[in-house]
C-alpha cells in the first residue's frame, strides 16, 4: 500500500496553514517532514491519519493499514507496561507483545505500572505500541521527544526493520535519525497564503 497525497490544503483552528502539499510514500520508504514550529506538521499528520478533514486536495491511503503515534501516548498509569501493550495488541487483533518489548528493551520493565516509568521509558512504550499493531504505514508525530541517544538508535533500527519488511513511515521530527534511506520534505514553501478552499469563510469575504 502506498500513501499518495496530492495538492493538499489543511487548516488548524479554522485558519489555513498549508496548501499545495503533494508527496508519495511507497512501501519500503520513509518520509521525514521538517519545518518550523506552527507550520502544521501535526495537523498534516492528523489529516493523513483521517482524524481531521482536509480543506482540499486528495489523500489516498487505506485507513485500515495505518497506525498513528501522537504527542500523547495513551498510556494508562495504573496498568503495567505489559497490560498497556497487550491492550493495544488486542484492539488490533493480535496478541504477541514480546517482540515489541524486546525491540525497545522494555522486557525488564514489563510488570511495572506505567505510572512509575520515566518520560523516556513512557515514550519507548508508546513507540512499542506501533510494533504490536501490525500496521503497514506508521504515522509518527515527534516520535523522539524525550528519548536518549540509545533509545533513538532503538527507534531507528525498529524503523529500518519495518521498512525492510515492506512497511512505510511518515514522521515529523527535528533530529537526525541517521536513516540514510529516508526522504526529507521541507514544509516551509507550502505555507498557506490565501484562504484556500474554505468555501464558507470565502462566502463572507
Amino acid at each position: 500500500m502506498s500513501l499518495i497525497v496530492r495538492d493538499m490544503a489543511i487548516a488548524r483552528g479554522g485558519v489555513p496553514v498549508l496548501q499545495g502539499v503533494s508527496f508519495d510514500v511507497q512501501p519500503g520508504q520513509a518520509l521525514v517532514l521538517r519545518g518550523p514550529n506552527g507550520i502544521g506538521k501535526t495537523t498534516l499528520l492528523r489529516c493523513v491519519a483521517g482524524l481531521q478533514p482536509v480543506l482540499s486536495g486528495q489523500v489516498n491511503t487505506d485507513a485500515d493499514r495505518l497506525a498513528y503515534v501522537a504527542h500523547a501516548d495513551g498510556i494508562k498509569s495504573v496498568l503495567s507496561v505489559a497490560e498497556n501493550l497487550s491492550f493495544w495488541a488486542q484492539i488490533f487483533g493480535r496478541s504477541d507483545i514480546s517482540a515489541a518489548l524486546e525491540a525497545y528493551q522494555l522486557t525488564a520493565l514489563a510488570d511495572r505500572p506505567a505510572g512509575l516509568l520515566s518520560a523516556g521509558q513512557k515514550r519507548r512504550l508508546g513507540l512499542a505500541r506501533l510494533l504490536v499493531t501490525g500496521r503497514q504505514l506508521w504515522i509518527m508525530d515527534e516520535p523522539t521527544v524525550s528519548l536518549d541517544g540509545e533509545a533513538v538508535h532503538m527507534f531507528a533500527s525498529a524503523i529500518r526493520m519495518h521498512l525492510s519488511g515492506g512497511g512505510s513511515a511518515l514522521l515529523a521530527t527535528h533530529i537526525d535519525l541517521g536513516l540514510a534511506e529516508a526522504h526529507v520534505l521541507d514544509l516551509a514553501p507550502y505555507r498557506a497564503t490565501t484562504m484556500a478552499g474554505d468555501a464558507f469563510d470565502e462566502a463572507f469575504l
Partner: protein
Amino acid sequence: MKEPRVTSLWTYANPKKFIETTDKLLPWVAMLALICLVTGLIWGFFFTPDDYRQGATVKIIYIHVPSALMAINAWLMMLVASLVWIVRRHHVSALAARAAAPVGLVMTLIALATGAIWGQPMWGTWWAWDPRLTSFLVLTLFYFGYIALWAAIENDDTAADLTSILCLVGSVFAVLSRYAVNFWNQGLHQGASLSLDEKENVADVFYHPLLVSIAGFVLLFIALVLLRTRTEIRARRTRALLARERMN
C-alpha cells in the same frame, strides 16, 4: 459575466445573498408583525366581551396561546435548520438555528409566565404539575442546554455540528418527555384552544382576534430570527476577516 438566475431555494443559503435579500425583506416583515400584534391585542383586549365564567382574565389568551405555539414552533424550526445543516451543510441554516434558540426560549418563558398569571385566578394556584405546564418546563431545560452548548464551544463549525446532533436527539427526548408527563399526571389544563374540530374551539368572537395575534407572533418570530441570523452572519464574517488578518 451574467448573473446566474435564481433557480433553487439553496441560493439563499449563501450568506451574502441572504443578507441582500433580508435587507429588503426585514422591514416589511417587522412592519407587518407590528400591525398584526397591535391590531390583534387591541381588538382582543378592548373589543371582545368578557367570558361568562372567566371574566376579563380570559384576555390573557391573546398572549398566552400565541407564545406557547411559537415556543414549540421555534424548536421545530431549529430541528429543520439542524437537519439542513447536517445534510447539506449550509452555514446560514446552522446560524439560523442558533439565532432562533433564544427567541424560542423567551417565548417559552412568556407562555409559562402568562400561564401562571392566568392560572392563579382560575385554578387558585400559580403553578400546578399539570402535563402541559410540566412539558413546557422541560422544553425550557432543553433550550437552556442547547444555548449553553452553542456558547461553550469556540470553533463555529464544531459548535454547529454538535448542537445539530443535540437538537435531533433532544427532539426525540422532548417528545418522549411529553408522553411520559402525560402518563404521569392527568391535569387541570383545558384542551386545545385551536383545533380543526369546530366544537372544541373557543367561540368565534375570541377566535378572530386570536388568529390575528398568532399571525403577529409568527411574524415577530420571523423578524427576530432574520435579524439575529444577520447578526450571527456578520459576527462570523468578522471572525473570518480576523483569521485572514492573522495569516498575513
